[in-house]
Structure formats: C-alpha cells, structure tokens
C-alpha cells in the first residue's frame, strides 16, 4: 500500500471518528439545561396570554426545527456547526462566530510560542543528554525534567507569579496588554510579548520536562543500533552521525508523543489562561460555562475536537514523512 492510500484511509477513518464524537456532542447539546425556545422568547412568556404564547411557542419551536425527529435535528445542527453558524451568544449578545476571533488568536499565539520554546530547548537538550548518557550533566537534567513534568502547571504558575511578578516584579501578573496603553506597531507587539512571558514560561516548563525525556530515550535506543556503528566506522564526523543518522530515526517515536502533547497543550492552556486571565479560548470556555452561555461552550468544544482530530491527521502525515518504512495496513 502506498503512502497516498494510507493517508486517504486514515482521513476517511478520522471523518468517521468525527461523526461519532459529534453525536456525543449533540447529546451534550441536548442535555444542556434550559429550553431553547423559552430562552429565545425571553420575557414574552409573562407578557402574553397563555394560549397566544402557546401558539407562538409552537411556531418558534417549528422554526427552530425542534419538532422534527432527533436524527434530522442532529443533521441540521451538524450542518450549522460545519458552516460556521455556531449560534447566538447570550453573554456577548451577538453571533458566536463574531466573538471567537480574538480569543482564538490569543490562544493560538500563546500555544505556538510555547511550542517554539519547548522544541528549541528540549530537542537539543534531549540529544545532548543522550550523547553524554549517565554523566553528571545527564543526571541533573534527568532530575530537573522529572520535577518539571510531575508538578502541575498551576503550581508552577503560582511559583512563577510569586518569584517573577511579586517578589521581583519583572513581568505583569495577568492580562494581555498594559491597561490604557495606546502603543501601536512594534511597541504593542513588545507589550504583548512582555505579558506573554509568564504564561509561556510556565507552559514550557512542563513541556520541556516531558519532551526532553522522550527525545533522550529515543536517541539512546537509536544510538545503540548497528547502523550508527557503521556510520562511525565509515569515519563520518560525530555531528553528522548524531544529527543526521541518529536523530532522523529518533524522530519517529518523538513525533507521536509531540502530537499528543500539542493537543494536550491546548487543553491544558485552559488552566493557564484562567490563572493569568489570558483572554483566550480556554477562558472563554470557562466564562461561558459560568454564565451558562452554551452556544459559546459548544463552539469551544468543537474547536478542541477539531484540533484533536487535526492532530491525528498531522501525526499520520508526519509519520509518512519521517519514516520511509510506513506501510501500515491498519
């Protein structure tokens, strides 16, 4: 089976998974408290005569399609979700699709920056520790990484706030930009980066812990292989052996882990966003739940599901790219 067919098969499968999860989401949607018709009609229940209200109720119900059987309701709902009609937010008093732009940008920015920091630090660190296996440097990094990935992010966040925002007020405690700041252009970007420093630092610490350990383990496995001995015997420079021959092969297990880590990162940033009051999707989700604004909640849920599935697709593509042997018939 060629790579193309393998990818196609995976894609079809992912659409199937999406279908199943969307049914689950529809169930959540239906089990949300409150009658959507009552919410839509608002105060007219008290102001109108009961029989006239009943008539209006039935009419609205029909116009919302709630009188149809569940499968049809499901497809109508799914169609709306896929075409960007996420519903009306009671909190922001407008269509959800109009309010998710800025938070989505904030969250994606935060997570991309974190990913960048984590990869830039953890991959060289993992390789370095693998090469100097069991040395003093390796041992100390091992201890630090186990601490890094064991401690919950919100505890790291509290520590970081205590050290870098309270004791030594270098970075701001929360928010996305200085209040009342009118800076534009580069200054505005600088201000935002300055505000992002703490959340990114906190999210990076746990990521670096995990990824470094994985890179190290994968590299050690690879460095034991016979083809590494061959490469060295050929007289290749050590750098070429490690970065070209060994690292490419070590990437395969690393890719799997990173994909799951990235998906988890977006989920985990909910906690960080609520600690640092970062106006991203996670904070929007929590606010939506607290304000019982379910249109927003479902949209956020949709985002996380799509992200998770996209993670799967990217993992498959990355697999086929880094591993020429992928001929899975799954």
């Amino acid at each position, binding site marked *: 089976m060629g790579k193309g067919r393998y990818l196609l098969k995976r894609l079809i499968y992912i659409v199937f998974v999406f279908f199943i999860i969307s049914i689950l989401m529809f169930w959540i949607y239906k089990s949300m408290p409150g009658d959507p018709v009552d919410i839509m009609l608002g105060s007219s229940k008290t102001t109108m005569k009961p029989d006239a209200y009943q008539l209006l109720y039935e009419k609205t119900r029909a116009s919302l399609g709630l009188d149809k059987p569940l499968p049809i309701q499901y497809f109508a709902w799914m169609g709306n979700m896929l075409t960007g009609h996420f519903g009306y937010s009671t909190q922001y008093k407008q269509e959800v699709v109009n309010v998710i732009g800025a938070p989505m940008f904030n969250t994606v920015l935060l997570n991309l920056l974190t990913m960048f920091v984590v990869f830039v630090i953890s991959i060289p660190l993992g390789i370095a520790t693998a090469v100097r296996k069991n040395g003093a440097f390796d041992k100390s990094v091992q201890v630090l990484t186990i601490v890094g990935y*064991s401690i*919950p992010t919100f505890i790291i966040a509290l520590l970081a706030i205590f050290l870098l925002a309270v004791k030594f007020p270098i970075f701001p405690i929360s928010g996305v930009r200085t209040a009342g700041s009118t800076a534009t252009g580069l200054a505005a970007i600088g201000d935002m980066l300055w505000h992002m420093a703490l959340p990114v630092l906190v999210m990076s610490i746990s990521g670096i812990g995990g990824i470094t350990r994985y890179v190290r383990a994968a590299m050690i496995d690879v460095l034991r292989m016979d083809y590494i001995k061959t490469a060295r015997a050929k007289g290749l420079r050590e750098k070429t052996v490690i970065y070209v021959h060994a690292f490419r092969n070590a990437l395969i297990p690393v890719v799997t882990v990173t994909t799951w880590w990235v998906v988890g990162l977006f989920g985990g940033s909910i906690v960080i966003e609520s600690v640092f009051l970062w106006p991203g999707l996670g904070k929007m989700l929590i606010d939506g739940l607290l304000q019982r604004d379910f249109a927003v909640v479902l949209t956020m*849920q949709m985002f996380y599901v799509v992200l998770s599935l996209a993670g799967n697709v990217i993992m498959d593509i990355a697999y086929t790219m880094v591993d020429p042997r992928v001929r899975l018939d799954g």
Partner: protein
Amino acid sequence: MLNNKKRKRSTAAIAAQRMALGGLPQQEEEEVLQSPLQMVVGSFVRDKIAMTGVILFSFIFLCCIFLPIFFPIDLYYQDVTQANVASGFGMLSVPSQLQGNVQDITVGSSFSVGLDKNGNVYEWGTFPNNKLKNIPSTSETGKLVQVSAGLDHVVAVNEDGQIFTWGNDRMGLATIPMELRSGGNNIKQILAGYQISLALTEEGRMYNWGSDYLLSITYPEGVQGNIEKFAASTNIVMVLTKDGEVVPLTNKPSAYTNIPEEIQGNVVDLALTDECAAAVTADGRVYTWGNNIKKGLNVPEDIQGQVVAVSGGRYHFTAVLKDGTMRGWGDNTHGQASAPSGVTVSSVESGYYANYAITQDGSVTSWGLKGYLMGTDDLGRDLFRRMLVGGRMTMTVGAIAVVISTIIGIVVGGISGYKGGKVDNLLMRLTEIVSSIPFLPFCIILSSILGNSISETQRIILIMCILGLLSWPGIARLVRGSVLAEREQEFVTAAKALGVKEFGIIFRHILPNIITVIIVNATLNFATCMLTESSLSFIGFGVTEPNATWGNMLTGAQNGQVIENYWWRWVFPALMLGICTISINCIGDGLRDAIDPKSKER
C-alpha cells in the same frame, strides 16, 4: 507445558515468601533461578530514587488516611475572626517580662496584649493587621492601667482615664468620643470588640464608638448611668445594672433576650459567647441561656453554688470558683474549655479561643488555641486539617478513577488482543475515538453540565467516573500489545487444549503474566489522575467547596495579594501535591526500569 507454568508460579510464591521474611540477598548460583517477579522486586528495592518516592508517598498517604481521626474537621466550619492567620504556635507565648508583673492581659482574635505593672504594653501572636504594631509610646500615653484587644484593634486606658486605641482604624474605630479622649474620667471597664469599642465609667455611663452595624446598640430607658458591668459578643452587648439585673442593649428579641426571670436583681457577673450568655448569681450559681450548638449551656453540675466569676470566649466559658480553681465548658476544639486544675487564680480572662489566668502570685497561666500548624485560609479554616482531608479526597478520587480505567482497559485490551480480527478492529477504533476526545475541556464541560443538579457526594463520584471513563485507552493499548505477545506462548496452547474457556485463558492465564506492566501503568496513571483532579478542582469544575482537595485549596490563591501576603495558603498544598506527584512518577519510573532491564541502560 502446564507444569512449566505451575513451576513458574511456585517459584514466584517462594520468592514472595523470602521477600516477606527478610529479603536476604540471593546467593550467586540461585541468581539464575530467580523468578521474574523476584528480579523485579529486587532491582526495584535497590533503586534509591524509587524507594525514596515510595517512602515519601507512603508517609503522606498514611498521614492523610490516619491523621484525620486525631484531627477531626467540620467541613462547614467558618470563622471570620480567624481568617488568614499565619502558621505558627506563638499565640499563647506570654513574654517572660510579664510573669509575676502582670497588670492586665487580654485575648484578641489571633494575638494577645498584656500590660505590666509599669504600664508597658506587650503584644504577641500573629497580627491580622500591621497597624497593631504601632503601639503609642509611653511618653504619649502615660501609665496605662487597662487594655483590651478585639478582632484587629486594641483599646487602652491610662491612670487619668484617657483612652487610646491603635490597630485597625476603619469604621470610626479611631474616633474616640471627645470626653474620653481628654481624660479626667473614671473608666471602669473598656472592651475592644468586633469592629467596635466600648467603655464604661464609674458613674455607670457607657460609650461606644466604631461600627455598631452588627450590634445595633440601643439603650433602654434608665439604663445609662446605672451600669455596673457589660459584656459583648459579635451579636449583642448586654449590661449588668447596679441593681443586679441583666439588660440586653437591643430592641430585637433573640435567644439572648430570653433572660431567666428568676435571676434578675441577683446577678453579680455576666459573660457572653457568640451563641449564648451566662450569668452568675449571688449564691454562686451559673445560669445560661441562648443557643446550645457548641454546648455552651452545659454547665458542669458540680460547680453550681461555688462560682464567683465567669468569663466568655467565642464559644466557651471559664468560671472561677470560690476556692480559686477554674472550670471551663462549651466548645473544646482547641482545648480552650480544659482549664488547668490545681491552679488557684485571682482572675481569668477569656476571649476567642484562648484563656489567660492570673494566679495569686501574679504569674500568668494560659490554655486554648496556641496557633495553627499551617495557618488558616480566608474563611478562618485550619489549613492543616483541610490538607489532611483534602489529601484523602485527592487520593481517593485518583485511586478510584485509576481502578475504573484499569478495569476497562484490561477488559477491552484483553478481549481485543486475544480475539483479534473484527472484534479487535472494533474495540481499537473505540479506543481511538475515546483517546481523540479532548480530555480537559470534555471533563470541564461534563462536570459542569451533569454536575449542576446533583449533591456534593454525587458530584465527587461523577468526577471519578469521568476521569476513569476517559483515561482507559492507554492501558487498553498496552494490555492488547502484551496479550498479543503472550497468546502465542505454549501455556496458552496448553490451556486451550485442556478446554479452558476463552475468558479463563485471558484473565486467569495470560493476565498474571502481564500484571507487572499493568501495575506500572496504573501507578503512572494514578499520578495523572491526581493531577487532572487537582487541575479541575483548581479552576472550579472538580470537587467544590466545602469539600477540600489540594486543588481547590489553591483556588483562592490565584491573585498576587494572596501569593505575596499569605504564603502559607498556597505553599503547603502546592508542596504536598508536588511531592506526591513527583514521588509517584519516580515510583513508576523505578518500576518500569525494574521490569524492563533494557530501559535501565538508558
């Protein structure tokens, strides 16, 4: 072949026996015969990091399981007067200068103030307000003779009857009435209460300043100018008139105003707690009335007829008897009602949760609340006790979630791996679907939507189930992989040939061979579940107040002010949670190294 299998098991049993009997090092020639389990345990015990993890975690675990028996907790208990008290046990450490030289001593919310015979002021304990340390200088005050400490302020009076106050100055606490400020009065009694100050002159006239919002003091006709003594709690002020009658200074009827008729005109001393009142009559009997939630009405029968004076704390009373001994009753959570016996005292001063007694030779005896090991939170709850039950909760939720996920994982993985084919395909697709569900957002939404209309306990069970039901795919994949490897082994073929049923083969024959892998995974999963539960509780979608978990104890510590000023509120829970998860991860790593000798070379 079945014999082979049996022999394998019996050596394992012997190994376990040996381990239990003392774990003597094996001799070299026996090394070859070591069973897999023996080897695993042996190399695990030699792993120093993992053993440290085991010891630390077991210690915390045992503390959380057994210590709540000795430190019981009422989850609904709150006390604003004890809010944000720092950790430490200095509340009753009376300065040595006061011993034998004490003029007056008084109990404040979490601090105490003493006055020596020369008019010097001493303060000790933890201070709710830094302004409390601004004691006016002696040159300014002259010789102080009386002092009284309240929630977060102090009132003192000097020889000339001039009144001074320091500490909190909100709500008009600093605006002492003009005639009291200038001096020349005969001040008989002063009292600093909950955001209010009271003073009484020898002429029987009472003054109050500060906020009387909670107390709404009204003086019934003919009372002003006829007051002998007064007592105050956070709910009411009551006075004892010169005719020996008890009069509440309020026009709202309450449990306090149900004064027994038979004592009126005959009362010599009066004391109040936050739920009831006690009066001593001339014949030495104590009469109590009010609410009896903390047993403040249960006066010991054998002291009736001997009491000369009574003093009230927040929920307890201490009485001085004719012979100078003391008896306490009421709430005894901090030992404040256990007055020391065999001491003869001249007076006793109770307040909040502590008591000081001045003995006849002038030294000071104290009992009651010494302090809090880990301080208190913003609602005045003892953090140490909450840490213990919180730890128990965090671990219980984690453990049950792991049990649920492990059982599902074993069943799904076992069947999938053994059966293969279509069943395998179907179950693995299911596994992938569950593992594609974004974990944290889904937990938050489910617990918020389903947890809306259910009780606290049901909510906790719901959290366990959500965690368990969403975290099994990892273990299922692992079990499937191991079963795939094991099912081609000869003992499986033998079991099949003997006609053992499929479920028997999977769960009785294959499972014992892969149990070590499962244990490792479950251990690491336990750490993850504890973390997830803490994160959920931290952002308010897991276990909620008043139930404690390490996660929701940190919820209140999210702002810079708490982080800076009340370090004990976040350092202790964070430390415990951190130590636990690091230990469990170390244990898991150690187990994995022990099982897979290859991974040790990493």
